[in-house]
């Protein structure tokens, strides 16, 4: 009995990592091997830097989404929040508020949009799917109001540096992904907040009876998801030197796919940040690798769908065999 480790410690050793993420890691490795064989430039440091930068926006959005899905909810509005965040940042910068204040306002805007989703879900008892389908439209409408649909240029050098500069030889954007991954991972696996999320996602009634403040938790998690989307929006706008009104369109589906590929159950209660990161990487590697191989666009769609199916299937199979 004493050999049994705790939930959080379970992910620490490489062996356990393999056991838990065997299926999905296998898919990741297979995809990488295939691409390396077919293009010698694929397995290079600059290309992996490339992939990480490209996948950053989706990965960060997916971290937030993982929390929401763990709770048994869904957030379809993050694509729109990504766009609003970029636009808020660009507008506030244009007002001359400077980098720091603009960053703060943007993050607050993201948090507020997420919180609204949370309040509507928790306090008004509306299903989160419908709440976030509705706010997806509302936020997408809002983003277009200041410029009437046109993009807004970003002239602030610090803001644009996030997306293009490096620190200690590694692009800043990758640092940000790494830090946010760690923060989310630790928050989820080692704190009572994370534990409450798992429990509530597993059985909301039981959580309520056990004194977990389910409504508050829900609002906090939607706020977190909105904030993550805002960070994603900042990165995107900084990569693009501009805020686009159609930025982030349908990114919610990629974020959900990343989480689910990584083993997060849409029923709630099951999932990890490690899995989500691997899921996002698979999507990024696929997009990049097929570009490197010059696979025509429509075939890319098909291949991506097939790989997602196979990866999830391998994962389901490996989990079933274990018992």
């Amino acid at each position, binding site marked *: 009995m004493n050999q049994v480790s705790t939930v959080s410690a379970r992910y620490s050793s490489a062996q356990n990592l393999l056991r838990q993420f065997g299926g999905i890691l296998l898919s990741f490795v297979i995809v990488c091997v295939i691409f390396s064989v077919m293009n010698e*430039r694929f397995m*290079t440091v*600059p*290309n992996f830097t*490339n992939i990480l*930068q*490209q996948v950053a*926006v989706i990965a960060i959005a997916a971290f937030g989404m993982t929390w929401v899905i763990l709770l048994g909810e869904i957030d379809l509005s993050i694509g729109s929040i990504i766009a609003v965040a970029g636009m808020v940042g660009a507008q506030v910068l244009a007002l001359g508020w400077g980098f720091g204040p603009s960053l703060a306002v943007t993050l607050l805007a993201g948090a507020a949009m997420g919180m609204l989703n949370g309040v509507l879900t928790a306090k008004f008892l509306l299903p989160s799917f419908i709440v976030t389908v509705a706010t997806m439209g509302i936020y997408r409408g809002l983003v*277009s109001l200041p410029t*009437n*649909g*046109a*993009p807004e*240029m970003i002239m602030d050098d610090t803001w644009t540096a996030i*997306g*293009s500069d490096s620190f200690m030889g590694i692009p800043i954007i990758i640092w940000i992904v790494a830090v946010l991954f760690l923060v989310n991972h630790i928050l989820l696996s080692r704190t009572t907040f994370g534990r409450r999320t798992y429990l509530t996602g597993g059985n909301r009634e039981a959580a309520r009876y056990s004194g977990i403040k389910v409504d508050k938790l829900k609002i906090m998690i939607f706020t977190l998801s909105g904030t993550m989307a805002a960070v994603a929006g900042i990165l*995107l706008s900084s*990569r*693009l*030197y*501009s805020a*686009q*009104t*159609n*930025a*982030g*369109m349908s990114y919610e589906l990629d974020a959900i796919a990343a989480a689910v590929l990584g083993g997060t159950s849409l029923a709630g209660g099951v999932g990890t940040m490690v899995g989500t990161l691997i899921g996002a990487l698979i999507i990024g590697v696929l*997009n*990049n690798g097929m*570009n*490197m191989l*010059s696979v*025509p*666009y*429509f075939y890319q769609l098909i291949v991506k769908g097939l790989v997602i199916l196979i990866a999830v299937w391998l994962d389901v199979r490996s989990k079933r065999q274990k018992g």
Partner: protein
Amino acid sequence: EGIGASLLTQQHPFYIELADAMKNEATAKQVSLEVAIANQDLNKQLSDVEDFIVKGVDVIVISPVDSLGVRAAIAKAEKAGVKVITVDVPAVGSNVVSHIGTDNYTGGIKAGELMAKVLNGKGQVAIIDYPTVQSVVSRIEGFKKALEAFPEIEIVAQQTGITRAEALAAAQNMLQANPDISGIFGFGDDAALAAAVAVKSSGLEDQVKVIGFDGMEEARTAVDSNPVMVGVIQQFPNMLGKTAVDTAIQVIAGQTVPSEQPIVPGVYTGQ
């Protein structure tokens, strides 16, 4: 080595023709050409360009998803020492070696003049637009500018109809709300063809004239056969594509190329 092309979309006849023209020219001139489709997502376009840079192409041809936002992609290429040519949509605020594009504003003016002509300088006009695309905004601006000279022509409605289905619904609803509309300008072929269907289903064939923009085969056929479709502003994607590849080859060879290569659109009103 070779040319990398990042195109806005592959779900529009204009871009299909553009891509085909580029591929044909590349084959004819025996240069390698790789095409990536941004699917109207600027982030995907940036990723496509980054992947081209890693692959080591010599020149990148871009039809920007957005004039302003493409700056990041161009800057990346510039940093890596790769020259950029834009086609169709210009880049604003960044340097490219050459831009080859339709003059959308002039095209819009031509559409407005044609509209004034078929309406004999008087009537109610509706517009189907796509407000987040700069080239479309230019067309609409040109169209409105031309109509300013005709005080008896009034623009009574303007609605967004991005896909053909949306344009159809928008046109039907505008006709329902304003039964005296006598002219509709669609920002593209899809919008115009959808408007023509709406006119037919409302039974207003004798009253409403439709003008489109792009002038792909389907729309030209409609102008030939359908009296409602009175004309279409014709772009020349094959010329754009061919010129783009030729320019790229010149750039690779180290020759200087003109920084602007405008292709003036034509007006097609049937055979």
